[in-house]
């Protein structure tokens, strides 16, 4: 098998696939990941906000049964393994997209799996906020909606972005998994060639591209989060940069 893996024929064939199929697969994976993240944020962020503001003593206390059922729903969705969730929501996917095959169709289960995760991440970001700042806004006569939109979310931006980066890399992993049952992209190539046709080199290439994608997303996310953080960290960063020349 090992001879087979590195024989000139297999290498040539793998390079061929790398050139012909990988660019499109890379694109499919990227857009499925980003679109799924976008929809997951659109659904998950408001839920995360509700979990924080709606609790007893929060900015906008909601009936406790509502918060409790929201928590149960999120935990429930988060406990279903993604591969099984994908199969379970097939009827729903067909209802919305008209099909269950292809990259676009795979976005539906991706969003369903990711929004509870995003809601939890948003919740933890918003909880990091100093409650005194919210109290100050209340003392100035801010309404609950103004506090959410003008204080809680903007003040949590650095943390939200670094948590969203975690979400993006997780969703990227899910898109690869969706290749097992009809989704497109790098996952599909890795599974089709590696698992069904024993072309391990092709699978390896797909995995390397996935690794590179994760690196790119993570670096971009971290850089953005640091860049948008106006708190002390930036000040220290500047100081350090300034002091480096004098030290060297």
């Amino acid at each position, binding site marked *: 098998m090992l001879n087979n893996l590195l024989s000139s024929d297999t290498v040539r064939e793998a390079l061929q696939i790398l050139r012909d199929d990988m660019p499109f697969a890379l694109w499919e994976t990227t857009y499925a990941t980003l679109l799924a993240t976008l929809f997951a944020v659109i659904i998950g962020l408001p839920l995360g906000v509700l979990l924080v503001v709606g609790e007893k003593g929060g900015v906008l206390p909601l009936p406790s049964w509502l918060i409790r059922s929201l928590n149960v729903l999120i935990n429930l969705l988060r406990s279903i393994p993604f591969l099984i969730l994908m199969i379970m929501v097939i009827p729903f996917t067909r209802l919305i997209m008209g099909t269950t095959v292809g990259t676009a169709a795979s976005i539906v289960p991706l969003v369903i799996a990711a929004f509870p995760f995003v809601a939890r991440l948003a919740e933890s970001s918003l909880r990091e906020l*100093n409650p*005194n*700042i919210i*109290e*100050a*806004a*209340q*003392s*100035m*006569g*801010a*309404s609950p909606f*103004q506090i959410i939109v*003008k*204080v809680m979310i*903007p*003040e949590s*931006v*650095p943390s939200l972005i670094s948590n969203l980066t975690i979400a993006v890399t997780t969703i990227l992993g899910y898109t690869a998994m969706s290749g097992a049952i009809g989704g497109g992209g790098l996952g599909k190539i890795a599974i089709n060639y590696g698992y069904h046709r024993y072309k391990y080199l092709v699978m390896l290439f797909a995995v390397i591209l996935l690794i590179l994608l994760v690196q790119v997303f993570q670096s971009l996310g971290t850089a953005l989060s640091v860049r*948008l*953080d*106006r*708190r*002390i960290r*930036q*000040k220290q960063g500047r100081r350090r940069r300034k002091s480096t020349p004098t030290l060297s």
Partner: protein
Amino acid sequence: MRVEPGSMIEIQHLSKTFLASDNEIEALKDISLTVRGGDIYGIIGMSGAGKSTLVRCINMLERPTSGKVLIDGIDMGALPPAGLRAARRNIAMIFQSFNLLMQRTCLANICFPLELAGMKKQEAREKALRLLEIVGLPDKAKEYPARLSGGQQQRIAIARALAADPKVLLCDEATSALDPQTTRSILSLIRDINRRLGITVIVITHQMSVVEEICNRVAILENGCVIEEGEVTEVFARPQSAAGQRLVFPEADSEPLSAEAEGRVIRLIFNGAEAAGQPIITQMAIDERIAANILFASTKSIGSRVYGKMLLGLPDNGEITARAIRYLTKCPNVTAEELPAKKPAPSSLQQ
């Protein structure tokens, strides 16, 4: 100090009870206070006395369990949510930890309350720039708060508090995180604002010096009760309660026992004496040729008057001691008495 007629803040029989898991904590007990328009009113107490809870009840950040708060005649507790938010714009608040929005520039921080009130961006910006001038930081408009010192951050917080043209400014331990010099400059800014804009100020603090520096009236809070209340000069001159005395003369507990002194000991009480303590003793030395040794002194100047006490050591001579007491008692607002002869003191007294 400008004093407008009429009361700006009226607290009537205010109580606040917190429900802990299995017991109730009475944070405030039947508090009634009146703050006149234009006052700088100090509320002083040890930590845990209920000061912060009291000030939060004024703008309903904490709902009182019973009692009323009237601000400019409006019953704060009876307002619907939207009405309460509108009323809060008249009651600005600054905090020990400044509580600026860290992701906004200083200018945007000052614009924040104007934004909440729906003022146009350009108009708000112009107003914020004027306020930056008032607090003395015109060059910090584009800086983020994290790059400012504590004192500068508090100045930005004050500018933000003034943005909505409030009638009342609540200061919750506003200088407790600052060094003494910065504290002075912030306090003089607050006094300035009080005089120039006629804003009524409530100062919550545990520091005597803060009250002495800017307040005209004071309430002493202990265990959720107001134990003394009145003009600062009155209350600080003659603190009636034990807690008041502890606050005003924190050193008094450490008054040395007379046993340590050789000879006789006289206790002098300054009850608003005109001059500082030193000249009286010096004058006595010149006039009566009695050289007294100052064993202990805890005095405070409030306005131009002196309050507090002092222990003088004299030679073991009854005639000299009597003469000294006669001389000192003649001074207005000073009382003098001889301490009982030294006894071996039980060590428990010394703590």
